[in-house]
């Protein structure tokens, strides 16, 4: 684990090092750390673990930038430290009285400008590259709401929430729609962020390069539970993705006898006003589609693990679990909660 290594290295440093050396050392050490990319499997670490086309392109630019920045850092800070040591006050030293050096100043203006042009050109190339919509992309509409994500698979005619499933190797084209305030869709290991602005349909193109489970979250401050507006992207091999799609396209199976009471509560209670379950009368779209809820790992903006205990806690008082949740506390009895949880957990 990187954090563990960091702790050891950090503690090994003698504490009585002179502070300037400590500072320079610590900064260099941080740079080494940036390059090293040890063994920590950071779920949102875009510095070391890119697995998507955009993340990789961005990282290629970063690698060049950080290298140049590191050289400039060492040279300029080195000159500063050298000047401080070399020209520190000593008895008898006379300060040289000069006002400038025009040639040197022109050179020191032009050199950074040239370096910056060198960084700018590949950067602009990549900006246009990422904005270009690829052929044969999978179309998905993402609708951002306080505080969860709705996914409409336009090619397959079904909807799901918070957990996005995509095939590896095939480009995806997300159309991002805002329903209330500004949000931002971000899966660090796959792609940089794209804001979701109400009134604008933004787009995001990327391709997952490796199968895996990628965590992300809303990145534009959007209110009380901004921190709890998370998401997961599952990148499957194509055949596995097709299997998942065909499962999701099915309506919910009719309830077995032991969960029928839960379904009755759902359809006759407040739930039906906001949620949809395909194959039943529930068809509202202001809250997550629950048709295949039990096939998901998480709920509540991909913040809570989906299990009976968590779901029961949620139904008892959603805003207590997730501040600002638009689903209020309906004052359900313990018995009602149990029945609803049993029904919801049967929706696989």
């Amino acid at each position, binding site marked *: 684990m990187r954090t563990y290594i960091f702790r050891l290295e950090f503690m090994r440093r003698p504490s009585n090092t002179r502070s300037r050396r*400590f500072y320079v050392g610590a900064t260099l050490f941080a740079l080494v750390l940036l390059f090293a990319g040890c063994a*920590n499997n950071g779920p949102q670490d875009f510095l070391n673990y890119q697995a998507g086309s955009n993340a990789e392109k961005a990282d290629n630019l970063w690698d060049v930038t950080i290298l140049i920045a590191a050289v400039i*850092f060492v040279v300029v800070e080195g000159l500063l430290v050298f000047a401080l040591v070399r020209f520190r006050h000593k008895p008898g030293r006379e300060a040289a009285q000069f*006002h400038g050096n025009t040639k040197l100043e022109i050179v020191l203006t032009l050199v*950074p400008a040239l370096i910056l042009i060198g960084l*700018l050109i590949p950067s602009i190339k990549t*900006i246009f590259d990422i904005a270009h919509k690829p052929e044969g992309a999978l179309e998905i509409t993402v609708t951002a709401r306080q505080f969860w994500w709705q996914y409409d698979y336009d090619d397959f005619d079904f909807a799901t929430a918070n957990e996005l499933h995509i095939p590896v190797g095939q480009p995806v084209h997300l159309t991002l729609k805002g329903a209330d305030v500004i949000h931002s869709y971000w899966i660090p290991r796959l792609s940089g962020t794209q804001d979701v602005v*109400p009134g604008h349909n933004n787009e995001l193109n990327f391709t997952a390069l490796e199968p895996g489970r990628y965590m992300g979250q809303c990145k534009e401050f959007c209110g009380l539970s901004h921190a709890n507006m998370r998401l997961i992207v599952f990148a499957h091999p194509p055949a596995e993705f097709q299997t998942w799609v065909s499962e999701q396209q099915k309506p919910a199976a009719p309830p077995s006898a032991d969960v029928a009471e839960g379904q009755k509560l759902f359809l006759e209670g407040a739930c039906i006003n906001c949620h949809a379950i395909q194959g039943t009368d529930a068809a509202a779209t202001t809250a997550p589609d629950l048709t295949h809820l039990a096939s998901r790992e998480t709920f509540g903006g991909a913040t809570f693990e989906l299990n009976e205990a968590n779901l029961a806690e949620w139904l008892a008082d959603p805003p207590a679990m997730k501040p600002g949740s638009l689903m209020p506390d309906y004052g359900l009895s313990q018995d009602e909660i149990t029945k609803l949880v049993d029904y919801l957990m049967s929706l696989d």
Partner: protein
Amino acid sequence: MATATGSLPRRGLLARPTAKTGVWGWMTTVDHKKIGIMYCATALFFFGVGGLEALAIRLQLAQPNGEVLTASQYNQFFTMHGLTMIFLVVMPLGVGLMNYFIPLMIGARDVAFPRLNAFSYWVFLVGGLFLYSSFFLGGAPDGGWFGYAPLSTSLPGHGMTFYSLGLQILGVASLAGAVNFIITIINMRAPGMTFFKLPVFIWMSMVTSFLLLFAMPVIAVALFQLMFDRAFEANFFNPAAGGEPLLWQHLFWLFGHPEVYIMILPAMGIVSEILPTFARKPIFGYAAIVFAGAAIGIMGWGVWAHHMFAVGLGPVANSVFAATTMFIAVPTGVKIFNWLGTLWGGDIRFKTPLLFSVGFVALFIIGGLSGVSHAIVPHDAQQTDTYYIVAHFHYVLFGGAIFGIFGGIYYWWPKVFGWTLGEGLGKLHFWLFFIGMNLTFGLMHIVGLQGQPRRTYTYPEGMGWDFLNFIETIGAFTIAFSMVVFLVNIVISKAKREAAGDDPWDARTLEWATSSPPPEHNFDTIPQVHERDDFWYRKYGSPHEQPQPVIAGGADGHEEHIHLPSPSYFPMFASFGLPVAAYGVIFFSDWSFAPLVIGGGLLWTLLSLVGWVLEPGTADE
């Protein structure tokens, strides 16, 4: 009643205040030096408050799933931390030092409009208190300092209405100050002090003032729109009614990016005074450093959309703003090279002001480099809204502006109070500040690149962020402890009161040519300036003939009494009406009598301005 000679009536609405000392002496003063001290003292108080908010934030984030603050408290705290540090700390500290030292450094007796100057201070104070009163009136602003619509228009409670009106009031103070400083610098320079003999701090103050003059109206428009959306159900930013959320972002950042330079340029000016003094050399490349400052001031208007790379402006706009953002690094780099050149070949005295200035340069280099990395748009889409950004702007605004300003405080303290802050504790303060700063914000670079987003009140376990966040919190407390050292230093040094003398650092500029503390009229004789760093040449020989002092009262060598502007109640009174009117707007839908409160507040301010106009600037004697 006009007198027979036709002069204006000499009687104002109120009897003229006469107190020169005590509470009323301070409250009615129009002396730029007292106002400067009040500005800095108030801003340092708010620095403590904003710092406590930061500590609460860091405690909450010290470990995953923290439970120190609720989500609601966290959002109020990070919003108020940002607003406080920007509008109530860094800006007023810069303005406070400009207030005290612009007239002294250009050889003037006061600013151009002394009562307007007092008005700026009082409006700043009531604006800050108004903003903080929100904590006791239903909750503080909780939509971020950037206040993005439509979240800012839709958040419940009065918090973001306090934001729209509080910043509006503070903007009035900034505008009045900007006008005053510009006119003071242009019109009140001592004889012989041409523009290219101005100290760099004065140049940077002037650029800052022009930025304020043009930036504050932009945010004023946006804040009025936000106020109307919130209090009077307008729809400027409501997409459902044809409004445009991005309008807010363009206006906010068109103000917001020049604002960054408003905060950093005064500190760059301070450092450009301190480095030559302690290296005992003239500044390297004076013209380049002045032009670079002006270039930053101009180019700063063309980079605002780099705050909006992720909103979907399209590849063309993003490329253009990537280019402008890259190139604003060029004048910034020029300044850094010039500071290095100033140290080069010098005879460097390691006093506390120098340490803070060198700290500024060292940290600003890091902030500048990370700033360039934001211009790599595809990677900015990763960095934006992560702790990498938080790291960057704290290197620029804390490592930059705050270090520069503390350098200035240590540097000018003996001039202001006549006694010096202790060197030992001052150096301890610096090193703790420096180490704490790097621990807190240095590690944020890494945790940001590991994907930790900002403005989140909590984070789960297993993200790989726990340990670094914990160390960041230790760093924050190190900074807090260093501020305790600073306060202890003030108390101990005040008890000792070791006389500093008029020129304790063997400095270069005119403020050191008068006594410490300076007399109310600053200079017994207005200096005649022949050189850049005129005071240095007076001490160490000038190629020109010895300066001819101008005797107070006129250039004819005929000594007269020095007329200074007289104290006045009206600037303070005028400021009081603004928050009253603002409360009326905030509680417009709660109070049936709210229109009366709005009208009453505005009428109070108007009457105070009438009293101000009728009162002559200088009382009869």
